[in-house]
């Protein structure tokens, strides 16, 4: 087995340059690579294009990288929980591509799967359709959408082995598997790093072929956006 282990988050992101195109996994704050984001903040690289479903909140996740003005462009589907994001967007400081969530997921999947483009009905007749080829299939109009790829994909999994096989937990899977496949270099941070053979091959979500670097995150805050409970 190929050993892909790096010592920590700082080593994992060591060669990400200014102006890189990054994919960062997660939905809201669920399943985000928090240790790698902390390392990107320490590294201080600028001009980043970040492809991520959301932009974190003001003081956690990608929101932290917006505060430090490290992000030039966001490609996301929903950014409603972040006042700093909205401020930078409305003032024109930050470039933003808002993409329907399913189209975003499929464009990333297509990037990893080697499919340059596909047709989807999402966004037909809206401003999302501007400049895009339209074609009718079975009487319904569809838009041509192209693949997305990244210089570096940074994903977060629950468990991983030293050869890069990954297992996610709960809804923390979200965009992570597609992003893992769509990165030229994919960095995986995991809560628990184990030896090959310790994970059941039947249960692997992301096969190790997609992962170039893996490390066990030092700690996970796993902040919750909306803590909702019921009384027993």
């Amino acid at each position, binding site marked *: 087995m190929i050993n892909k282990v790096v010592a920590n988050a700082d080593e994992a992101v060591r060669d990400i340059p200014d102006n890189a195109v990054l994919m960062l996994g997660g*939905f*809201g*704050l*669920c*399943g985000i690579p928090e240790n790698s984001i902390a390392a990107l903040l320490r590294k201080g690289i600028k001009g980043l294009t970040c492809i991520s*479903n959301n932009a974190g909140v003001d003081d956690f996740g990608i929101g932290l990288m917006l505060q430090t003005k490290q992000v030039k462009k966001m490609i*996301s*589907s*929903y*950014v*409603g*929980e972040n006042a700093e994001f*909205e401020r930078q*967007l*409305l003032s024109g400081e930050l470039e*933003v591509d*808002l993409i*329907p*969530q*399913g*189209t975003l*997921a*499929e464009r*990333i*999947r297509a990037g990893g799967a080697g499919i340059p483009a596909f047709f*989807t*009905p*999402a*966004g*037909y*007749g*809206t*401003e*999302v359709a501007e400049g895009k080829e339209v074609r009718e299939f079975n009487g319904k109009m569809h838009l041509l959408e192209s693949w997305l790829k990244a210089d570096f994909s940074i994903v977060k999994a*629950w468990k991983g082995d030293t050869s890069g096989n990954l297992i996610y*937990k*709960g*809804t*923390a*899977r*979200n*965009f*992570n*598997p*597609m992003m893992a496949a769509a990165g030229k270099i994919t960095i995986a941070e995991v809560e628990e790093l184990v030896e090959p053979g310790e994970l059941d091959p039947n249960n692997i*979500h992301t096969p190790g072929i997609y992962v170039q670097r893996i490390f066990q995150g030092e700690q996970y805050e*796993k*902040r*919750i*956006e*909306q*803590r*909702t*409970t*019921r*009384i*027993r």
Partner: protein
Amino acid sequence: MGLDKIGIAKRIAQEVQDGTYINLGIGIPTLVSNFIPDDINVVLQSENGLLGIGPFPEEESIDADLINAGKQTVTTTAGSSLFSSAESFEMIRGGHVHLTILGAMEVSESGDIANWKIPGKMVKGMGGAMDLVASADNIIVAMQHCSRSGDSKLLKVCSLPITGIACVKKVVTDMAVMDVLPEGGFKLLERAPGVSVEEIQQATEGKLIVEGEIPEMQFD
């Protein structure tokens, strides 16, 4: 006068059919799940990768890795399944999710919906709404009939950037239940208790079609 949010959710719950898979949007639509009768079995889909959304967790079993599309902590139930965002939207795009219930800022008489952007003011993004409205067979909108300033939100043509065209099948507001006809127009089906046809007519800028006696909504 008119229904509160709970009332709108209760009325929409009456539309839910046994054996269906349903995606509920954030806000009033999420409340609908509380009023689905016990003898109606449905599976709720959350587009961040969960089929079979359970109730909110008890305090001691909160799991940060288990949330719904509104980022609220939830639980799984017997028979739940988990998957990626790509697979989630394959289900939606592939027509496997039968019913989508979502909120709106505006709906037009031709079934267009606007709910993702107010130019220069509010840009939250469309999230999964554009995919959902482009693909679901049945789309029910839950909304207030008028804005806080009293302007109709049921229009001839949407004034805000739209989320999808000619997709809304039914609208349930604090005042009325209406079908959106394929040829255009809001066909009035029911009135909220104590609301008159004239009041609904006044609050509806788009074409309102009234045929015969319009009954009041019935609640158990």
